[in-house]
Every structure is written in structure tokens, then in C-alpha cells.
């Protein structure tokens, strides 16, 4: 039984998991949807109710019947490397690939349906609250008046994007930023804007959950620092103990969301409360493992290597 990994070639975080699978002798196929059609190929057949699909990548073949699991890590846009790429060709290729893979019995980390839902930040906040996390007051609005009132009510608020920075050139970053008093909110009418009460934090927390196994890492914040990812403060990520209350909420959230893998961001305040900021369904873990030594790649490999349940 084979593990299928959908990711780009450059992704060295995948390498950490590939090495673990090699060590266990688990067969795997690493395929970038961007290489389909081309370096990668696909064939799916429906004949009198029977479904069979083959995928090939770099000369390796895998049949849908022998897929044990699928890891959606950092897949390229389908057909992005085609000689004449287009939005249409990407849509056609995506339908063929993900449509065929969704028709298999393989276990997913994470299933595309759950992944799509889990990426929606407003959905995250609602389900985080339901799961028992502390969630900072948040508004998403296109009304400048509403934004101004929210900022007035909570004093210190941050602005952050819903979907991340724009992709493409030139490269632009959208770090979470503090909104200064007296700011003009007219631009809120130009795009849905997410404002959130600033959490006066003493540390950032990154918690990675792999099939129920939890790895928390903590990085002390510099005074006045807003986005923990930017600016070298001399602090490093260190392993942290997961409080029981958080473990229960992570368990409930990943259950409700149907996520085999999830990376949570929290802000820890002076009372040691972990405020839920977001949950990245495909969040990066390479930096955490490299800095803390926590065996996250091993956990991912173990999950992927499990044999699927037999036919029902």
C-alpha cells in the first residue's frame, strides 16, 4: 500500500516526512499537481460501476486500489507547469485529479472538502468558540463606521488579512499590525477588513495536532511586538506543555472540523490564557521541529503509514 504526497519539489518540510517513510520501508509517490499533465499522468476509468484510477509521477505508478493515504502538503496549482497554462486547464486538471482521488478509499490529511471549510477564518472563530477556546472579539466589515466603533470600544486593535498576502510578483507581506488611534477607516469600504482586539501577550504559541497527537511550541514576545513571525527578537521556539483545557478544545475543534492535521496559533496573555487566533489546516511545521526537536514529521509519517480499514 502506497502513500501519495501532493506537494512541490522544493518543499523540504516534505523531505522530513519522506525520510521517515523511507526508513519504515513504506512505498510512496510524491506528485506535484502542477506537473499534470506532463511529468505526471493520470487515468481514471468507470466501467459498469467499477472505478479504477492510475497516477504516474517521474516514472512511478500507483493504482487507486493500493493507496493507503493522501497527504495534501504544498501542492502546486494543477497544470501550472503545462506548456500553455491557463485557468481553464487548471480547472480541468483539478477536476480530474481531485475528483478521481476523492473517489478512492484512501485516508486524507486533510480531505479537500474539510480543508476548504477550515480555511475560512470567520468559520474558525465560530467553531473555536464552540470548542471551548478563548477567542478575542473580532469584526469583519466593509462599513468604515463599524470599524471605527469597534476600534473605539476595544482601544487597542489589530488588522489582519483573511486569506493571506496576494500571491505573485512583487512579493508583498501583510503582517498583523496595530491600528493607531485616530486612523482613518475610509478604506474599510474598499475590502472586507478583519479587526481584532489586541491581546497583550507575553508569548506566541504554535500548537500542531497530528491525528490527535499534540505538539505545542512557545516563543516569548518582545515588548510591543505584534506579529510574532516578523523581526528577529533573539527569542526561539521552545517546547511547551499543553494545558488540559486546551487539549480538550483542540480535540473538539479538530473533530468538528474533520482535520487529521491542524496548526493552531495562540497568543498567551499575562494570566497564561491561550487566546485562539487561527487554525491553519495545512500549517508549516518545519521550523517548529527544527527549533524544538519535537518529532512532528515522525507523527505525520506514522499517521500516513497506517493501513486503511478493510472494505466495509
Amino acid at each position, binding site marked *: 500500500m502506497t502513500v501519495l504526497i501532493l506537494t512541490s*519539489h*522544493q518543499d*523540504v*518540510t516534505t*523531505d*522530513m516526512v*519522506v*525520510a521517515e517513510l523511507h526508513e519504515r520501508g513504506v512505498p*510512496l*509517490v*510524491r506528485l506535484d499537481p502542477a506537473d499534470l499533465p506532463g511529468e505526471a499522468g493520470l487515468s481514471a476509468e468507470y466501467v459498469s460501476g467499477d472505478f479504477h484510477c492510475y497516477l504516474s509521477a*517521474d*516514472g512511478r505508478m500507483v493504482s487507486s486500489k493500493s493507496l493507503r493515504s493522501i497527504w495534501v502538503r*504544498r501542492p502546486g496549482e494543477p497544470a501550472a507547469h503545462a506548456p500553455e497554462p491557463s485557468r481553464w486547464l487548471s480547472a480541468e486538471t483539478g477536476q480530474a485529479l481531485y475528483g478521481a482521488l476523492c473517489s478512492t478509499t484512501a485516508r486524507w490529511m486533510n480531505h479537500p472538502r474539510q480543508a476548504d471549510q477550515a*480555511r475560512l477564518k470567520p468559520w474558525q472563530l465560530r467553531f473555536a468558540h464552540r470548542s471551548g477556546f478563548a477567542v478575542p472579539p473580532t469584526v469583519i466589515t466593509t462599513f468604515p463606521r463599524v*470599524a471605527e466603533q469597534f476600534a473605539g470600544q476595544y482601544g487597542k486593535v489589530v*488588522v*489582519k*488579512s483573511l*486569506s*493571506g*498576502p496576494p*500571491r505573485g510578483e*512583487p*512579493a*508583498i*507581506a*501583510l*503582517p498583523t*499590525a496595530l491600528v493607531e488611534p485616530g486612523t482613518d*477607516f*475610509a*478604506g*474599510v*469600504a*474598499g*475590502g472586507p*477588513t478583519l479587526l481584532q482586539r489586541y491581546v497583550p501577550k507575553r508569548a506566541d504559541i*504554535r500548537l500542531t495536532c497530528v491525528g490527535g497527537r499534540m505538539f505545542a511550541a512557545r516563543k516569548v514576545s518582545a515588548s510591543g511586538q505584534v506579529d510574532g*513571525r*516578523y523581526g528577529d527578537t533573539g527569542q526561539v521556539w521552545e517546547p511547551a506543555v499543553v494545558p488540559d483545557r486546551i487539549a480538550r478544545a483542540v480535540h473538539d475543534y479538530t473533530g468538528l472540523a474533520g482535520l487529521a492535521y491542524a496548526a493552531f496559533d495562540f497568543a498567551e496573555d499575562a494570566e497564561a490564557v491561550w487566546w485562539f487566533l487561527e487554525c*491553519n*489546516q*495545512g*500549517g*508549516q511545521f*518545519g*521550523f517548529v521541529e*527544527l*527549533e524544538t526537536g519535537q518529532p512532528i514529521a515522525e507523527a505525520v509519517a506514522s499517521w500516513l503509514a497506517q493501513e486503511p480499514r478493510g472494505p466495509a
Partner: protein
Amino acid sequence: MRPFIWNYAQHNEGPDAPVPYAYNSAAQLNLLPDGRPAISDRELLLALSTTTSTAGSQTHFDD
């Protein structure tokens, strides 16, 4: 109209530095010029920050 959040955008410095490893399809891993896996060089990976949560953000919204 310019969206509000654009007032807080930052330009990333220059293109990414070229990486000293290349994908090897037989191993399904990235290898250094001497044939060792790229991941065997922890210091290199930390220095390149290809594994951090801001590195991927340009190409991916899952970080």
C-alpha cells in the same frame, strides 16, 4: 478604493536566495551537491528559512 489593510503592507526584500540543493526524483528528496539529503543539514535549513511560516505564505495561504 484602496483596501484598508494595504496601508499596512510591506514589500519583501528581493527574490529568494537560490537554494544549494536540488530535487532528485529517484530519492523523492532534495539532495545537496555531495549527495546527502538537504534535511541532514539542520543549520542550512534554519538559515534559509524555507521551513518557516512566512516563507510559504507567498505561495500558499495555509501557513
